C-alpha cells in the first residue's frame, strides 16, 4: 500500500468512526498541520457528501405494490421454523454422536500402551476382527429394508408437500 492509499484508508476510518480515541487525536493533529493530509481529506469529504446526499434510489413501476398484494392474496404465511423443529430430537442426535465419539476416543486411549518406548509400532497388538461374524446376510437385509422404508417416507413427504403447494396456488 503506498502512502496516499494509507492516508486515504485512515481518513475513511476516521470518518466512519472505526478508530480509537488516540488514533482520532493523531489524525486530527495531522489534518490541522499537514497540507497533504488536508488535500486528501477535502477530496474524500467531497466524495463522502456525494455518496450521502446524491445517490438516488430507483423507483419500480406504479403497479408494483398492487402486484405483490395480488400475489400474496392466495398465499399463507409459513409457520415459524421453531414451531416444527423439535429441539429435543436435535439435542438427542447431538448427544448420540457426542457419546459415540467420546466412547471411541476413550476406547482408543485405553488401548495405547503408555509405557512403550523404542519401536512403538511393534508394541501395538491390534485385535483381529472377523467381519463375517457381524455383517451377515440377515443384517444386511434388515439394514437395506430400513433404508428403503425411510426413503419411501421421505418421498411421500416430499410429494405431499408439492401437492399441498399446488393446491394452495390453485385456490
Amino acid at each position, binding site marked *: 500500500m503506498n502512502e496516499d*492509499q494509507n492516508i*486515504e*484508508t485512515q481518513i*475513511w476510518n476516521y470518518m*466512519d468512526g*472505526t478508530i480509537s480515541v488516540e488514533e482520532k487525536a493523531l489524525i486530527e493533529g495531522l489534518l490541522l498541520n499537514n497540507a497533504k493530509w488536508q488535500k486528501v481529506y477535502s*477530496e*474524500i469529504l*467531497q*466524495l463522502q457528501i*456525494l*455518496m*450521502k*446526499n*446524491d*445517490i*438516488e*434510489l*430507483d*423507483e*419500480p*413501476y406504479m403497479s*408494483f*405494490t398492487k*402486484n*405483490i*398484494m395480488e*400475489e*400474496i*392474496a392466495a*398465499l*399463507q*404465511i*409459513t*409457520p*415459524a*421454523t421453531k*414451531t416444527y423443529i423439535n429441539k429435543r430430537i436435535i439435542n438427542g442426535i447431538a448427544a448420540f454422536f457426542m457419546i459415540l465419539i467420546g466412547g471411541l476416543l476413550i476406547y482408543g486411549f485405553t488401548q495405547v500402551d503408555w509405557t512403550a518406548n523404542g519401536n512403538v509400532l511393534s508394541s501395538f497388538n491390534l485385535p483381529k476382527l472377523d467381519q463375517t461374524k457381524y455383517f451377515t446376510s440377515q443384517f444386511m437385509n434388515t439394514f437395506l429394508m430400513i433404508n428403503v422404508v425411510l426413503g419411501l417416507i421421505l418421498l411421500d413427504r416430499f410429494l405431499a408437500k408439492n401437492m399441498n403447494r399446488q393446491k394452495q396456488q390453485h385456490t
Partner: protein
Amino acid sequence: MNAETGDNEVINRVLQGDQQAFAVLVKAYRHFVFTIALRYTGNREDAEELAQDVFVKAYRSLADFRHDSKFSTWLYTITVNTSSSFLRKKKTEIHSITNERIFELANTAIPVMNRIAMEQKSKAALMNSVIRLLNADDATIITLFYEGDQSLEEIGQIMGITSNTAKVKLHRARQRLKEKLSTHFSNELKEMRQ
C-alpha cells in the same frame, strides 16, 4: 415512533391475519429493494420481477423474523440472497462485470452519461452514472451503507461476511468509485469544486 417500532407493529398485525397491512412494508421498502435488485440485474424488468419475488418470500417467511435485527436488515438479506441466486441461475455477467467489461462499457456509455450529467447539471445523475460502472457487490455495499442506513455489522449479516470483511469491502468499493469518478468525470468534479 421510530421506523423499527413501526415495522414491528405492522409485522405483528400481518402475523395476526391482517394481510393488507403488508402493503405498508412494501411501500416503505420497495425503492430500496428494487434498487438493490437493479444493481444485480442491470435491467428494470428483471429487477422488478426479482423485487416482487423478495417481498413474496418475505411475506411467506414473516413468522421466521425473530426481531433480533432490524426488519430492513432481514429484508435486505433476502434481497441480496435472491439477487445472487438470480445471477447464478442466469449464468450471465449482466452487472457483475470484469475489469475488461467495465472498460468496454465505460468507452461506450460514458460519453452518453457525461452528456446527461452535463445537461442535467445534477450531482445525483452523476452519482448514478458512476454507480452503474461498479460491479454489483461494490454498488450494493455502498448503497446499503449510505442509503440503506445499515451498519458494517448489519452489512456483514446481509452479505454473509464478517463485519471486518464488510469494512474492507466497503473501503475497496469507495476507492473504486473514487477512481471511476476521477477517470471518467474529472471535469464534472472540477466544476463542483468551483
